[in-house]
């Protein structure tokens, strides 16, 4: 019975989808995978799933492609716009160039969440935020419920709403931003993510999403963006966009899954530089770092793509590959390859029930292996300076590679409360110049931390002149935590969230630095040191008392010597007088030709008044 029911349901769904594909609602859902080989045998895979729902249907609980679980949470928490990021690893912009989506679809290491909530007051916004984080925590199996007051900030300059908000609602929307840098993103976060998709992971490009590959990637970011979009003259829609970007190491991905250990290859398979004079059967200067530009889809993802999702908009090609047009690419039957006019990308149109596979053979032409990566607008690198457990500093190196364009951006830090920053030490200087340059920092928004209640929020609008490197530095002091506040792995240190850099001009671009590990003064929770400390204290007390009793002389107050400035003055006078007298006498003795020992001089006048004071 149940099977029959599901069959009927399924046919209904497919019928409706057939209908809808013909109608205007076709644009409701689409998905696309973009593959871009990167230098150093890396491959960027960008998965993008997007669906729309009209606001009226959303409010009527008539979810179609929009995930119901998420939709209800958003309604319950009064969320206007939501951005959620799960990230792992780091984007190597030196080698890989500009970030995908201009950095708009990624977060710092761990979990990042920011949302515009509709609320009349700050308290109400906080309450809704609590509801939202707790609900999302359950939905995504992540510790989002740990985003409490100390990890929540209200950015002023950094984030701007991406969606179209009505002017009437803008006044009472609140932006809240929370970040969990220590959260380890894992397969348990991927599964709920896939469940939000209309085709789940059963068909279409989502079939390529395998936890083993995704979390073996050198860099990966899962993003969920929900925002209202109001086309001019049309009905407002709520758009949900799910994005997964990952950079796979081709060499690592090609290893068979049952034998992932990178054992040394047999000697005869090692690619060698035979031009070396010492080259022989047992001596080999390796050249293999150039290789690995040949791969197939199933090698990289461990499986082929199972058709397309029947709900997707057929106008959008599901897979695109960004390699120079001159490079030959083989694909399976039933696939139509379309080379784009830009000469650096091609897309594949796939029939719904075809297993899709592409093969990139080793390139014949070394110069046209991959599309040259775009130079990012800014490079940023942040690290700690100083050492010790008392204070430290943060240094961010911002490099503008452009020869002629100045970059203006907002640098945002949300720091934990136990890093107390000294704002007056914040300075920016251009590399090569010894003194700081006041004109680099244009505007600072600073909200100081409150111990155990909220973290520091620092937003700096600054600029980097063309072709120069700017050092932004500030110092901070480390607080001592209460001993119950230490986590079980206290000696690991505390993660400090990535700094968010939002470029305002010349173009919109986002980037994030890596997170940091801040070590705080940590008590030794083990026994031996406590024993040492206790015994030392006991001995010190005993010794002090004993010493006191042994050495101190007890006298009544009136018996003691007089003290005060007058006494001191008198004493000095006496001493000088004594010396003078002695000097005179010596002189006199010399004239007397050394008669008599100056024995009586032993106790000079000073001794009389000099009383040992202990």
């Amino acid at each position, binding site marked *: 019975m149940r099977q029959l029911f599901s069959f009927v349901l399924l046919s209904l769904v497919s019928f409706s989808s057939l209908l809808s594909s013909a109608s205007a609602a076709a644009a409701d859902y689409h998905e696309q995978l973009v593959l871009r080989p990167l230098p150093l045998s890396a491959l960027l895979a960008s998965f993008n799933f997007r669906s729309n729902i009209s606001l009226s249907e959303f409010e009527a609980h008539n979810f179609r492609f929009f995930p119901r679980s998420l939709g209800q949470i958003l309604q319950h928490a009064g969320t206007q716009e939501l951005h959620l990021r799960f990230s792992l690893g780091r984007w190597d912009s030196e080698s890989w160039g500009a970030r995908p989506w201009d950095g708009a679809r990624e977060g710092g290491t761990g979990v990042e969440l920011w949302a515009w909530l509709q609320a009349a007051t700050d308290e109400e916004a906080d309450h809704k935020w609590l509801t939202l984080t707790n609900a999302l925590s359950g939905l995504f199996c992540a510790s989002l419920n740990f985003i409490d007051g100390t990890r929540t900030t209200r950015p002023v300059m950094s984030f701007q709403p991406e969606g179209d908000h009505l002017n009437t609602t803008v006044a009472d929307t609140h932006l809240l931003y929370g970040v969990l840098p220590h959260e380890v993103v894992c397969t348990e976060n991927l599964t709920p993510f896939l469940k939000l998709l209309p085709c789940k992971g059963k068909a279409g490009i989502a079939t390529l999403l395998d936890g083993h590959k995704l979390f073996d990637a050198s860099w990966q970011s899962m993003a969920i963006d929900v925002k209202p979009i109001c086309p001019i003259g049309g009905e407002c829609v709520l758009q949900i966009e799910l994005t997964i970007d990952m950079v796979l190491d081709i060499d690592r991905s090609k290893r068979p899954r049952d034998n992932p250990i990178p054992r*040394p290859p047999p000697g005869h398979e090692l690619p060698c530089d035979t031009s*070396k004079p010492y080259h022989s059967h047992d001596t080999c200067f390796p050249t293999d770092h150039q290789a690995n530009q040949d791969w197939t889809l199933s090698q990289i993802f461990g499986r082929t793509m199972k058709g397309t999702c029947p709900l997707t908009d057929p106008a959008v090609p599901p897979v695109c590959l960004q390699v120079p047009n001159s490079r030959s690419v083989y694909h399976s039957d039933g696939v139509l390859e379309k080379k784009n006019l830009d000469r650096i990308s091609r897309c594949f149109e796939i029939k719904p029930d075809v297993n899709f596979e592409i093969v990139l053979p080793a390139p014949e032409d070394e110069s046209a292996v991959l599309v040259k990566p775009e130079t990012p607008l800014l490079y940023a690198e942040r690290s700690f300076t100083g050492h010790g457990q008392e204070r430290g500093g943060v240094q961010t190196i911002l490099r503008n590679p452009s020869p002629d364009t100045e970059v203006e951006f907002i640098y945002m830090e949300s720091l934990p409360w136990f890093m107390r920053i000294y704002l007056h030490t914040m300075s920016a200087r251009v590399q090569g110049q010894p003194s700081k340059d006041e004109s680099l920092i244009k505007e600072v928004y600073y909200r100081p931390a409150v111990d155990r209640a909220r973290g520091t929020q620092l937003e700096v609008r600054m600029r980097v002149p063309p072709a120069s490197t700017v050092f932004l530095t500030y110092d901070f002091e480390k607080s001592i935590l209460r001993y119950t506040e230490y986590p079980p792995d206290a000696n690991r240190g505390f993660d400090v969230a990535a700094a968010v850099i939002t470029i305002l001009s010349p173009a919109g671009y986002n980037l994030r630095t890596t997170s940091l590990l801040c070590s705080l003064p940590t008590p030794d929770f083990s026994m031996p040191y406590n024993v040492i400390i206790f015994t030392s204290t006991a001995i010190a007390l005993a010794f002090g008392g004993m010493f006191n009793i042994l050495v101190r002389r007890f006298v009544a107050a009136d018996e003691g010597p007089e003290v005060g400035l007058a006494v001191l003055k008198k004493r000095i006078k006496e001493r000088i007088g004594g010396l003078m007298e002695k000097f005179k006498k010596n002189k006199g003795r010399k004239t007397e030709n050394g008669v008599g020992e100056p024995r009586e001089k032993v106790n000079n006048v000073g001794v009389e008044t000099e009383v040992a004071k202990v």
Partner: protein
Amino acid sequence: MPRLLSSALALRRDPRILKIPPYLSLLCILVGAVWLFLLPLNEYSRRTYISENALLPGQVHTYFGGSDQNVFRAYKQEVNSLVGKSNVEINDKLESIVKGLGLKTARQNFTYNAAGRTYAGENLYAILQAPRGDATEAIVLVAAWENAKHEVNKNGIPLVLTLARYFKRWSLWSKDIIILLSPDSIAGPQAWVDAYHDAHDSSRVASLPIKSGALQGAIAIDYVQEHRFKSVHIVYDGVNGQLPNLDLINSVVNIAGGQMGMGVALQEMWNHNDKYPDRLRTMLRGMLKQGLGLASGPHSSFIPYHVDAVTLQPFGEGWQDEMAMGRVVEGTFRSLNNLLEHLHQSFFFYLLMHRERFVSIGTYLPSAMLVAANFTIMAIFLWMKSGQPEEVPAASTPESSDKDTAAPTAERNLLLPLAVVTLSGSLSAIPLYIFNHVPESALTPSFYFFLVINTLLPIAISIVSTQLFTPTLQQFHLIKSFSLLLLGMFLSSLATLNFSLAMLIGLLSAPLSFVKPYSSPVARIVGFIILNLTSPPAVLLASAAVWGLNVGDILREAAVAWHVTGTYSAVVVWCVWWPAWLAGCVCVLGKPIHQEGKVKKA
């Protein structure tokens, strides 16, 4: 309580109590010294154990080998072709190899001036970014072009390059791996670590252009030997006697000894039979090295920054090859990679006497503390003694017929004692400055000059003070009391930082507790000679003769250590030991005159 207090007060006036301290003091020294010799016994030392469970040493298969050896041979050819070339040429070639592996490289210049010489060079380092990591933590693999004995690290450099290439293939690293190739073993790593922690003087040492996260550990490879080796020698002494976490040493012992089946040696004890004499010898060698506080290898500079590090040196004739050495490093790195927290379990204060036997601070510290306590006891004793009137005048005082039980107390004349102790303390800045700032060629002459001055100075001070102030016995007691009090205080604090140095200085200055102003000239001269035999310069000269070293070389090493690694042993010798010695000499040479009856009732 009042009864206790009064009985204590009564006790302190008991003349018998003043007889005890010198014997007590001697007993402290004897017990302290004997204590040290008991430590190697089974009853007092402990077996080592891995305290940090996350390390799991020797629990992983190591795969370094096979065709990696072909690569190693090629890199070795490249390195051999670089021998004798300049630092920059070497770095150019090595950088091209490391860059070819896909690592991010950078260089750093440094210049140190010490003993009239310039120690300059250029560090090359590369960061292998953890494939899935986030740049929060890093571990360091160091290979210096020259080891501490200035031999070219002919196998170590290619091994590190081959390991870097091998590590790049793994995706399991949770921490970045930094490869540091420095031109020498002491200055290069020191400059790099200083700059990594922004503790460098930017006029001499350049800042690092690229950085990674917090350093969690470092392994240095010193592999000079060309033929196959038998065992691995672990060098673990840090600057100023600081030691790496015992867990790190235990891990290496476990991996090299247990998993790889090669022996492990410590403190140049190539054959260790785990019997009492060998254990004692290992411990004493360790203490001596710790006491000197010099950098013993590329790892030493890391330890002051709380980065646990050791140097591994293969030695002996055996059948282990470079790949085996590589697997030891691989295993150790896999263990370090497992760490969830900074190494903090286990011990930072220990004396190793065998690769699997150690004593911890709780067991060995009392010996140094007892030796230091002897000075404090003597200081208190002398202070009390100085407060008692001398017998002859006391008998003649008219008030002595009083029935008052309170003992008479002599006035203490503090000015001269304080002046002498302050003078000797401030004079100590002179040798400290001279020996750290004189050019190398002038070190030996200035040392002998200083030796002569050093012998004459106490005589001069004593003559001058006798002429000008005619000090009494009480004042000599006070001089000695103050200087011993300072010595005892410094040594007991030092014992917690550098146990061995405190112990050495304590034993060498033990005679200072027992010398006193003698009335007979013969005794005075004998005492002065004894003190001169245990003076800091004499000990330096004697140790140079014992080890067959040149005094100038020792002083140069000390000056380099002072300027480059910040070794504070010189401060302890010149500013703690020497002033105490000087004050002691002044006391011995003093010709006290008896004080006349200035007695006051308490």
